[in-house]
Every structure is written in structure tokens, then in C-alpha cells.
């Protein structure tokens, strides 16, 4: 009976835990301190990426798909392009008001929501750090499909690879879910932008041919998605390394500080 009560109390205690990371065999998710303005900036660059950066992958992917979908339906990128090059009349003609007025409130909301989340998460992290009894991440986990273990990763290696084909670096970071989500929009982008062929023709000097292949509506997505994926990879690598240090430090403090070093100081007396 007593055992039952104590174990129940332990359960209750565990429910109050704030973890900074969770590691399952196929993926890892972690939170770390982030500047809310930085998060808001990425939401501004591309709705959903702010959430993605904070580890809120599910809401992030919904918002990213919304952005691709409504932006295409309202021809917003084409309108932005035309406004930037000074063709305002055509821009007014081309934008679909029906969808544009769906886009605006969700765009603003996304920026505000990611800012709010970042602020609140920073506070949760403070609580997590201050609660010394927290279990942190498990350094090793395995299932029938995958093996995941916590190791330091080199941020320069990660960023280097991500310049060529950004989403593949999520394999290096062992983040399956992030990889799948990222691969969805990267696949769509590579298909609809024709960017690989356009790059090829640009490099051999046939600029006209390259320009015909590109449509501003799709190409304007590319800089944000490209830079974000590299940034995200960099952030997640740094997060992973910090997590490794925190975990190892906690293990060492818990397990290897039971002895004493008195004999170092009391040599003369002996």
C-alpha cells in the first residue's frame, strides 16, 4: 500500500516536470532560449517558420502549407514582384482579393503568436533550469526502426552541407519529423520553381532561357525557405551540443561527486 502511494506521488511529481528536450528513437525535439524578435522575424519572412524554430512543428507545418496555398491562390508573390519593379497597375489587377483578405489576418496573427510563444517558452526554460529535480534528456534510445543517441555535432559541417540541399542535413541531426516536413515543401519548390535547370542555364550564360523557366510567384518563396532551413539547421545543431553538455554535466554531478578529496589536504597529519 505504502509502495503504491509513493509510486503515485512520484508520478505526480513527474507530471510537474518541464523538460527541455525529448528524445525518441527516430527524432529529437528541444527548446532553447530564443530572442522573441528573431522568432517574429522568421514568421514575417515566412509564416510558420517561427513556430518551426520553436519546436512547434505541427502548427508550423500547417501555417507553412497555408502560406504556400493562399499565397499561390491570391498571386501575392507576383503582386509583390510587380510592385517592387514599379508596375503598380498590373499588381492591382493580378491580386485575387477573395484570398488576399484571408491571408492578411492569418499573417499578422502568425507573427504575434510566434512572438508570444517565444516569450512564454523562455519563461518555461527558466523554470526548467531552476527545478533541479528535473530529469533531462535520455542520451540513448532505440526502437525496432531507429537508434538515436546524443552526441556533439559540428555546426560548420551542418551548415556546409545545407548550402547544397538544405533538408538533408536533418538526417545528420537525426530529426525524422523535421526532415519529412521540410522535404514536403522542398520537393514542391524544386518542382515548381525549375530552379535547378534555371541555375544550369544561368551558369552556362543563357540568361534568357533561364528567365523563361522562372515564375516570380514561385521563385519568391525560395530565398526565405533556403535561408530559413540553413538557419534552422545551425540553431538545432547548437541546441543539440548544449543539450549534450547539460546532460553529461548532470550525470557527472549525480554519479561522480560522492567521494572526498580530504587526503589531498591532510597529508602532513597522517
Amino acid at each position, binding site marked *: 500500500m505504502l509502495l503504491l502511494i509513493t509510486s503515485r506521488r512520484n508520478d505526480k511529481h513527474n507530471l510537474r516536470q518541464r523538460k527541455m528536450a525529448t528524445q525518441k528513437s527516430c527524432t529529437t525535439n528541444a527548446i532553447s532560449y530564443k530572442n522573441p524578435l528573431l522568432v517574429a522575424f522568421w514568421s514575417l*519572412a515566412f509564416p510558420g517558420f517561427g513556430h518551426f524554430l520553436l519546436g512547434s512543428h505541427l502548427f508550423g507545418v500547417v501555417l507553412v502549407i497555408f502560406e504556400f496555398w493562399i499565397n499561390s491562390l491570391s498571386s501575392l508573390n507576383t503582386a509583390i514582384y510587380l510592385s517592387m*519593379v514599379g508596375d503598380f497597375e498590373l499588381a492591382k489587377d493580378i491580386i485575387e482579393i477573395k484570398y488576399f483578405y484571408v491571408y492578411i489576418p492569418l499573417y499578422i496573427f502568425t507573427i504575434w503568436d510566434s512572438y508570444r510563444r517565444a516569450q512564454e517558452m523562455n519563461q518555461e526554460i527558466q523554470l526548467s533550469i531552476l527545478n533541479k529535480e528535473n530529469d533531462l534528456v535520455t542520451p540513448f534510445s532505440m526502437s525496432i526502426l531507429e537508434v538515436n543517441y546524443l552526441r556533439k555535432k559540428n555546426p560548420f559541417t551542418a551548415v556546409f552541407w545545407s548550402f547544397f540541399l538544405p533538408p538533408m542535413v536533418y538526417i545528420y541531426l537525426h530529426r525524422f519529423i523535421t526532415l519529412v516536413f521540410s522535404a514536403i515543401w522542398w520537393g514542391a519548390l524544386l518542382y515548381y520553381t525549375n530552379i535547378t535547370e534555371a541555375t544550369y542555364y*544561368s551558369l552556362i550564360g543563357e540568361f534568357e532561357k533561364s528567365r523563361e523557366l522562372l515564375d516570380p510567384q514561385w521563385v519568391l518563396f525560395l530565398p526565405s525557405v533556403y535561408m530559413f532551413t540553413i538557419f534552422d539547421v545551425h540553431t538545432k545543431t547548437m541546441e543539440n551540443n548544449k543539450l549534450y553538455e547539460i546532460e553529461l554535466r548532470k550525470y557527472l554531478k549525480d554519479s*561522480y561527486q560522492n567521494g572526498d578529496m580530504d*587526503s589531498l589536504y591532510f597529508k602532513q597529519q597522517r
Partner: protein
Amino acid sequence: MSMHIIASFEYSPFLEVTIKKLEEKEIKKENIIALPLDKRAETKHVQESIDLSAGKSRMDYAFIIGLILMLLGTIYGFQLTWGPVIWGLIGLVAGVAVGMTVEQFSNRHRRGKRKRLNQKTAEVFLAVKVPLEQKEMVEKILLENGALGIGHLN
């Protein structure tokens, strides 16, 4: 008769391997003390935020300005001879360069310190109490597994 061997390490899997190897050689857990160091920081508040922010990124501005200039390069590239791809890439490289420069200047007062922090530094001290006859063997294990330096006291 026993002696103390003290070694410094970075946080790495080698450190764990070292400890397990020592335990395998029948050095008791009580005779091994690991002392992780708190990293140097100016104030407690900063200490906390650095602890949590997964290391201050030196790249934030580079990514942001890189993105903005890449976007502008892509847009106006449609009007220019070289096309959006080349101008987008030019924008990217220019933006990253500008961003890095901004970062260097905005953190000038911190730069020297940060450089030192980026080098290999002792992050954990490991003190092992061993019988004299095991000294050679323990030192060999420590050095083979990435100890940055060792010292001993009879």
C-alpha cells in the same frame, strides 16, 4: 599507499569512456570525482541566458541580411541581364558578408573574450585516487582518451 591523478577534459563521449574504463580496472566509484566547471560569464543573468541559448550564435545577422538581399537580388534580377539566379546568389553572398561585418562590429567589446572561449578549453576536471602501482596504467588510459592535461600528487 595511494596517489591522486587530476586530468582536464572537454565534454565528450571520450570522458564517459575514460570513466568506464577506469571502473573496469577496479577503481572504485568513490575514488573518482568529476567536477564540471560552470562557464565563465560576466553576470549571473548573462550566465543563465547563455546557458539556455545554446551558445550565442554569431550568424543571426548574416542569415537575416542574407535573406533580405537575396530576395531583392531575385526580384530585380528579373529586370537585369544576368537574371534572378545569379543576382539572387550575389545578394546572398553580399548579405552574408554584410551580416558578418555587422555582427563583428556590434560585438566588438566581446570579441576578444569570445575568441578565447572558442578554443579548446578544460570543461571538466577528473580526479582519480589510485594505488601507486596503478599510476602508469591510469595515466595511459587518461591520455589515450583525450585528456587535455594531467597532473599528479603523491
